[in-house]
C-alpha cells in the first residue's frame, strides 16, 4: 500500500520549511546529489518518527523506535567516513540532517548527537586505524550505539575535576567511578569514558568501554527529568571495569583534548536540533493561529499574536545561518587540521551558535505555548514538548554560562579566561 499526503506526496518534496533551508544552502553553498539524498532520508525518518515520539512523550518514556528508524534510513553514521561504512557527510550536511530531525524534538537530537557527534566522531578523530576499523562500521550500521561518559555528579561544567579513576592492570586498565546524566547510558553498547590515574592529579584519559563488561552497571534510568522524556538518560557505575589496552582512545593523559573536540562537534549538533525545534514551533503556531477563532476572527489577526510569530521567525532566520556558518568553519578546519586559527574560529562560532540557538529555541517554544493558550499547557499539544525539552539545551554540552565565558575569552584573549 502507498499512502501519501497532499503536502508531502509519497517520496516527492521535503517538509516545506526544511525544503527552503535546503534550497537556500544549495543555492548559496552548493549541495551534491549524495548530500541531498541524506537529507531526503532525514525527511522520511522524521516523518516516520512523528507518531512514536508523540506517544512515548506522553508516556514519559524513552522511544526505542528512534534507533530502528535511523538504522532503516541509513542515518546512524551520517558523519562517519565512507571507508568505514558511513555517509561521509561534512559538518554542514550533518547540521541540516539534525535540523530536520529537530522538528520531531530534542529527544531524537540527543540520541543522534551523542551517538554520532560525540561518540563516533571521537573515535574517527582520535582513534588509530585499528580502532576505527573495529568500531566505526558497526556505529554506521547502528549495531553499535555510543554514549559519552564525561559528566559526574561533582564534575559538570568542570570536567577537569572528574573523579573516575583508572589503574593499569596487565593488558589493560581497570576503571572505577560513577557517571551521571549520561545520554544513551542504558542503551549504549560502547561508551567513551574519561578517567584520571588513581590517587594522583594526572590528566584524564579517554577510553572506549564495552558496556557488556561485568564492571559496568546502569544504576538508574533518570526518568524524573522535567522534559526530554524520549531520550535515555542514566547514571552508571564502574567497578573494576576492564578496558583492554587497545581501547585507549588517543594518548594517555590527553582525554580533555578528546573531550573538548567532541564537544565542538556536539554543540553544532545541538544547535542544529534547536533550529529544527524553532521550525516546528513556527509551523505549529502558524497553523493554530490561522485556524483558531477568538473575538470573531482568527487569532493570527490579533497583533500580539503576530508579535510572537515575528519573534520566532526572526530567531529562526538568525540562528539558522549562525549554525551553518559554524558548520562551514568546522568543515574548513577539517580540510586544514593543523591550522590552529581555524580551530579557534570553529570553537568560537560553535559556542556562539549553540548559545544563541538554544536560548532562541527556548524562547520560541515559550511563545508557541503562549499562542496555543490553555491547550499549549498540555503535553498533548505539539509545542509543549519543545518548551520542556529546550530548557536542557541551555545546560547540556556546555551551559549558557560556559558558552558566554568561552565567547568572551575568544574576544579578550586567553589571559582573560574566567573559567580556569
Amino acid at each position, binding site marked *: *500500500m*502507498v*499512502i*501519501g*499526503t*497532499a*503536502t508531502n*506526496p*509519497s517520496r516527492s518534496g521535503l517538509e516545506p520549511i526544511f525544503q527552503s533551508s535546503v534550497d537556500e544552502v544549495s543555492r548559496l553553498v552548493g549541495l551534491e546529489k549524495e548530500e541531498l539524498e541524506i537529507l531526503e532520508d532525514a525527511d522520511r525518518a522524521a*516523518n516516520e518518527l*512523528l*507518531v512514536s515520539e*508523540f*506517544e512515548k*512523550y*506522553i*508516556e514519559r518514556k524513552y522511544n526505542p523506535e528512534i534507533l530502528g528508524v535511523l538504522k532503516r534510513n541509513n542515518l546512524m553514521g551520517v558523519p562517519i567516513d565512507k571507508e568505514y561504512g558511513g555517509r561521509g557527510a561534512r559538518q554542514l550536511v550533518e547540521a541540516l540532517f539534525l535540523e530536520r530531525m529537530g522538528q520531531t524534538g530534542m529527544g531524537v537530537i540527543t540520541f543522534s548527537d551523542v551517538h554520532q557527534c560525540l561518540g563516533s566522531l571521537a573515535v574517527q578523530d582520535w582513534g588509530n586505524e585499528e580502532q576505527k576499523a573495529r568500531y566505526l562500521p558497526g556505529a554506521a550500521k547502528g549495531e553499535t550505539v555510543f554514549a559519552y561518559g564525561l559528566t559526574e555528579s561533582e564534575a559538570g561544567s568542570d570536567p577537569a575535576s572528574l573523579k573516575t579513576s583508572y589503574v593499569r592492570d596487565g593488558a589493560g586498565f581497570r576503571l572505577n567511578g560513577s557517571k551521571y546524566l549520561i545520554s544513551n547510558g542504558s542503551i549504549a553498547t560502547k561508551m567513551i569514558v574519561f578517567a584520571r590515574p588513581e590517587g594522583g592529579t594526572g590528566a584524564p584519559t579517554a577510553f572506549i568501554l564495552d558496556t557488556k563488561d561485568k564492571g559496568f552497571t546502569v544504576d538508574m534510568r533518570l526518568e524524573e527529568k522535567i522534559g526530554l522524556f524520549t531520550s535515555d538518560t542514566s547514571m552508571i557505575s564502574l567497578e573494576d571495569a576492564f578496558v583492554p589496552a587497545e581501547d585507549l582512545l588517543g594518548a594517555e593523559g590527553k582525554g580533555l583534548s578528546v573531550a573538548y573536540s567532541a564537544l565542538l562537534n556536539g554543540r553544532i549538533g545541538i544547535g542544529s536540533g534547536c533550529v529544527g525545534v524553532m521550525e*516546528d514551533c513556527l*509551523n*505549529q503556531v502558524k*497553523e*493554530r493561529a490561522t*485556524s483558531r477563532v477568538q473575538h470573531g476572527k482568527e487569532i493570527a489577526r490579533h497583533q500580539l499574536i503576530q508579535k510572537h510569530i515575528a519573534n520566532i521567525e526572526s530567531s529562526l532566520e538568525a540562528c539558522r545561518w549562525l549554525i551553518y556558518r559554524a558548520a562551514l568553519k568546522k568543515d574548513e578546519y577539517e580540510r586544514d587540521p593543523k591550522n590552529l586559527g581555524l580551530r579557534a574560529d570553529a570553537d568560537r562560532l560553535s559556542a556562539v551558535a549553540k548559545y544563541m540557538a538554544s536560548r532562541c529555541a527556548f524562547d520560541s517554544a515559550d511563545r508557541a505555548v503562549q499562542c*496555543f493558550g490553555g*491547550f499549549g499547557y498540555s503535553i*498533548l*499539544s*505539539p509545542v509543549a514538548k519543545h518548551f520542556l525539552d529546550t530548557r536542557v539545551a541551555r545546560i547540556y554540552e556546555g551551559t549558557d554560562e560556559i558558552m558566554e565565558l568561552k565567547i568572551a575569552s575568544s574576544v579578550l584573549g586567553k589571559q582573560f579566561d574566567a573559567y580556569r
Partner: protein
Amino acid sequence: MKLHLEGSNVMNSSREKVYSLLTDPRFIAKTLPDAEEVHLIDDTSLEAKIRLRIAVVSTTMKMKMTVSSVRPPSKAAMTAEGAGSGSSLKITSLFELSGDNPTSMNWSADAEVTGVMAGIGSTLLKGFATKKVTEIFSGITKAIEASSD
C-alpha cells in the same frame, strides 16, 4: 483543521466483488477497527461508536457513515461524520477502482477536525491518520480477499 490523505491499494479479487463489498455498509461495519455498538440504519448507512486512540488518550466518537455508488463498478464515495469528547470529525472519501483481479484501488480522503483533537496539529494528526488508515485498509483487504475464496 483540514487534512488530505491519498493512497492506493491492490486486492486479489475481482473488481465487481471489491466494489460490491466496499459499498455495502454491513461489510464495512465488520471491518471497522475499535468499533463498538454498530448498527445499520439502511442499505447505505450505519452508525457506530468508534474508539479513537491517540497515545494513552482515547475518546469515543459517535459516527454516521454513508456509502454511495458514483459509477459502478469503478467509483464510490463514503462520508463519515461524528463528534465526541470535545472534538468533531467529518471525512469525505472517494474510491476509484481499476483492473480486475487483481483490482487496484486509488483513494483520497478530506477530513475536517475541530475541537480538542484539532489542537494536536495537522503534522501529528496526519501521522495518526496514516497509521489508522493503514490498519483499516489492511483489514478491508484481508476481508475482501477472504470472501473471494
